[in-house]
């Protein structure tokens, strides 16, 4: 008959050879290897200050007949840690709680979550995936009565509790937006089109709308640009530096309460640039010249100078402020 025995790291373990008397002649093995007699006290096996490496199968055989008298699977591990990373996050109609063990215990652990609202017990439904998460739907919305969530983690060495107490509004924090995509806009060297989706863990954006915060910067600069958007799941950046790779992230928040989500996964994108042309016939050069100068002109809709501040003439006419912008571009292209 095989057993499993759970012991704490550092403990002293005594194993009896089944029903054999103390003075019986026996041989002990660990994972098939004989154990030296110095570890025996009569027929008892004594393991002092056990460590993780001593986990394994221990067997005891009667001296002369080599009959197997006792077998046990020794599992050395740790008690449940007191910190469990218990976290609860509201999503409008209810909340999720998740947890994890910061250090392994090397033995099987089970988790139990209890939720009390005032005097009422509630059930947090465990998710199939991920395993360490449960979801509870509020019976009442807008209550000032606090919720008390208790996580009990149990393993063969004992149990530990973690408790969180909060009210409905205090824990509202969405997950970051999902599926963030940034694309260049054809024929627009300063634009990037960004779109994203509401986090899938936010079940009812119609009744509990989210607002968003977008941040972006070219990889070569440290300073972020920020845009706050009260609705919609897309935005067009119109002031990107031509030809520079950008990094873009989005965060979400309930429109009315709670805190901002973490930043989404970063996406990279570079605005549209014209294909570089090779120097060939004169006819083609002329075409190229007029096409390439247009990309250095300020966009027609942007009014950035007065008539009197124009420098140059014809196709290369730019005004003072645009001239400074062009100079800045030139520096970046060096």
């Amino acid at each position, binding site marked *: 008959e095989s057993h499993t025995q759970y012991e704490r790291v550092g403990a002293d373990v005594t194993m009896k050879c089944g029903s054999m008397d103390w003075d019986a002649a026996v041989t002990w093995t660990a994972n098939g290897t004989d154990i030296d007699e110095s570890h025996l006290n009569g027929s008892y096996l004594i393991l002092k200050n056990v460590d993780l490496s001593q986990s394994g199968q221990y067997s005891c055989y009667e001296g002369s007949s080599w009959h197997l008298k006792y077998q046990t699977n020794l599992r050395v591990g740790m008690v449940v840690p007191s910190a469990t990373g218990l976290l609860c996050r509201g999503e409008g*109609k209810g909340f999720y709680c998740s947890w994890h063990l910061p250090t392994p215990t090397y033995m099987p652990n089970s988790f139990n979550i209890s939720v009390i609202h005032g005097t009422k017990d509630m059930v947090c439904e465990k998710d199939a995936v991920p395993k360490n998460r449960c979801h509870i739907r509020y*019976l*009442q*919305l*807008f*209550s*000032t*009565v*606090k919720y008390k969530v208790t996580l009990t983690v149990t393993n063969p060495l004992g149990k530990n509790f973690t408790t969180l107490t909060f009210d409905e*509004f205090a824990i509202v924090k969405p997950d970051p937006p999902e599926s963030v995509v940034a694309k260049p806009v054809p024929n627009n060297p300063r634009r990037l089109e960004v779109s994203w989706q509401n986090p899938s863990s936010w079940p*009812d954006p*119609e*009744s*509990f*709308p989210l607002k968003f915060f977008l941040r972006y910067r070219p990889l070569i600069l440290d300073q972020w640009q920020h845009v706050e958007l009260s609705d919609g799941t897309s935005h067009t950046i119109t002031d990107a530096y031509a030809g520079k790779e950008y990094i873009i992230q989005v965060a979400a928040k309930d*429109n*009315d*309460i709670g805190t901002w989500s973490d930043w989404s996964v970063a996406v990279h994108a570079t605005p549209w640039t014209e294909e570089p042309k090779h120097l060939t016939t004169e006819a083609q050069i002329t075409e190229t010249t007029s096409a390439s100068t247009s990309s250095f002109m300020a966009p027609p809709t942007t009014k950035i100078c007065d008539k009197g501040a124009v420098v140059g003439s014809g196709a290369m006419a730019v005004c003072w402020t645009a001239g400074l912008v062009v100079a800045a571009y030139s520096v970046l292209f060096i």
Partner: protein
Amino acid sequence: MAAAESPSAALRRRDLCSRGIRLAGKMRADVVDLLDTYVEQQGLDASASVAAVEGVPLAAVEHWDEQTGTQRLLENLAAYRAFRALLAQMLEEQREQLGEADAGLGRALAAVLLQVSAFAYHLEELLRLESRGIPGEEGDEEEEDGPPPPPRLSLFEQKLRGLGVLRELAQWAVRSVRDLRQLAKPSPATGAAPGLAESP
């Protein structure tokens, strides 16, 4: 009978709802600030649990998403009328207790009271748009054997009740924003607001 809304009524309702949402948003921000001031000046513990006090409308509601538009408006109106009276009473108690010593708190209370009154009126406008009669306020009717006036609370009880009032008001302000958003949604089938149309 299910009444289809005229386009102008639908526009007016959406307009009233958006303005109401902004009013409630500002009101909530002011109530939250007032709560901080109140807790500090009254020497209370911010995390103290306050038992539900009689007369303070609780924002907590079950099956919130199943409520009709009419229910939302009526419950909101009843709540803000109650808050109007409660805040007026708090203001009076405040003046009795401290006179000029707490002018800042008094002013903040008065400002919130103004916004609560304005919001109640705004709700009445929405109800009028629905062509619904506006319920009379309690205390308007004369009763022969009215309930006796509640016993006067001790100073400490007054402070705790004040905390309860402001906390519930802060919750209500969020609920009102959410309610108005539901109200502003066009109904997919008839074009009327969900819940405003009544079944035969």
